[in-house]
């Protein structure tokens, strides 16, 4: 087991507002790490700071270190576009581009280089297969992605994210807009993807975190209260705050 991302004394600010306080945690390679906590606790801010999607917000800045394979994500010489190629992202709402299924998956590879037509076809097929969507869309590659149902759209977004061959996939409440059946299919998919990728998922759904993750971090008011193996955190929470949150008495 190795650390994919090591977070050391990491704080994050929106202007003068401190959203994250001095976080320390290790995200293990090829494991699913879930981040839980009430709304506004900073878990999404943390997730988005890992691929620097917060950079666009005026006044946003980080302190401390977040090391991807030992190299600080916030080092001045980091190429942000390249970083995002290594750390992909899936969002809360299924958000395919208003283009064909094929073009959605091909978008990343196209902007990152000029893949040959045959290679691109291969890559699109593989990505859709790995996202467990291929069988459903193989005859509809030229149709608009918006004609798919929400569950399919979300798996398409996952296919789009893995088409650029990232090492880490960040998922920001990827199931909150899906029905229970689609949610379970995305969770199944996550487990299979963890064989190849490191996955960090933000979720509001504690059952989901308990079911689908290997490690869980509990955030409260911008602090990481507890971080442990999922079965430990849910079975024997060390902090009374964690205990009361996961048992539904706070939050």
């Amino acid at each position, binding site marked *: 087991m190795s650390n994919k991302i090591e977070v050391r004394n990491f704080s994050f600010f929106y202007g003068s507002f401190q959203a994250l306080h001095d976080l320390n945690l290790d995200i293990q390679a090829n494991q699913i790490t879930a981040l839980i906590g009430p709304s506004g606790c900073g878990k999404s801010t943390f997730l988005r700071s890992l691929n620097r*999607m917060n950079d666009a917000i005026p006044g946003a800045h980080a302190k401390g270190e977040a090391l991807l394979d030992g190299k600080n994500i916030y080092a001045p010489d980091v190429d942000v576009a390249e970083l995002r190629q290594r750390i992909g992202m899936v969002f809360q709402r299924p*958000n395919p*581009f208003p283009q064909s299924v094929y073009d959605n998956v091909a978008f990343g590879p196209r902007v990152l280089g000029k893949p040959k037509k045959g290679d691109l076809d291969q890559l699109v097929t593989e990505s859709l297969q790995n996202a467990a969507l291929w069988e459903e869309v193989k005859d509809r590659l030229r149709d608009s992605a918006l004609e798919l149902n929400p569950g399919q759209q979300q798996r398409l977004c996952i296919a789009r994210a893995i088409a650029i061959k990232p090492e880490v996939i960040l998922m920001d409440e990827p199931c909150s807009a899906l029905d229970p059946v689609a949610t379970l299919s995305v969770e199944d998919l996550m487990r299979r993807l963890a064989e190849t990728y490191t996955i960090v998922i933000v979720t509001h759904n504690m059952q989901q975190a308990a079911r689908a993750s290997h490690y869980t971090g509990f955030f409260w008011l911008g602090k990481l209260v507890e971080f442990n193996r999922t079965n430990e955190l849910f079975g024997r929470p060390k902090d009374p705050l964690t205990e009361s949150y996961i048992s539904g008495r706070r939050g």
Partner: protein
Amino acid sequence: MSRQKTNQLMIALITTIAIIVVIPVILVILFMFYNGLSALNWEFLTTAPYNGLRQGGIMPALLGTVYLTFATAIVSFPLAIAAAIYLAEYARDNRLTRAVRLAIVNLAGIPSIVYGLFGLGAFVLFMGFGTSIIAGALTLGILTLPVVISTAEEAILAVPQEFRTVSLSLGATRWQTIRYQVLPQALPGIITGIILGLGRAAGETAPILFTVAAVYLPELPKSIFDQSMALPYHLYVIATQVPGMPLSVQYGTALVLLLLVLSLTLVATIIRTNIRRHRQW
């Protein structure tokens, strides 16, 4: 009077006033058709005028305006798109942005004759293009900028932020995001703006008065450095400068100009309606 009575009265009043707004438009169109339709025929559209403009058709003026409109589009399109992208995508609120926005507002307020004089000074004389299509197109191009830039900016801003975020998260650069996601989705809206701008430009007289228009030039222009006749100016000339000009020809010319501008606006409206219907987000 009861509240309900007042309510009904106000609705009736407002509806009546709204209808009154429509009446002048309909009257102008009907008036032009009534007086000008008799002059319209194939020959009128396809022959040059002769006998001191009193006889023949309007072909060189009509084609001149078509050329001029195309040339204006070529001038206006890149400038407006660049400005709109800058304002919508890159600009933070700084001095340059405020200067650009102030310039656009002021451009919209400049009287068209001032554009004409500016075009004469800047393009005809200083840049040495002479009275020519290119000088006219540059002048009209600047005239259309405010409307084209603001519609294009609106179209770009209407593309949901989410698509930009996703595109960036896939490793695309800012420019790739604009080029491959934002612009394709904003394009129909941008084109609408350009057509509306061109509709305005096609009907303008003052800006082309000193920059491109010829009173009588039966041959068509051979290059963008040639003078050309143009429909609005031709109308001005035959309505004011030619004694004994048949009224039906004047109205016929006005009708053609009106139809040209209306059809541009109509095309823009159709595109806009289509976007609204097919917008999928």
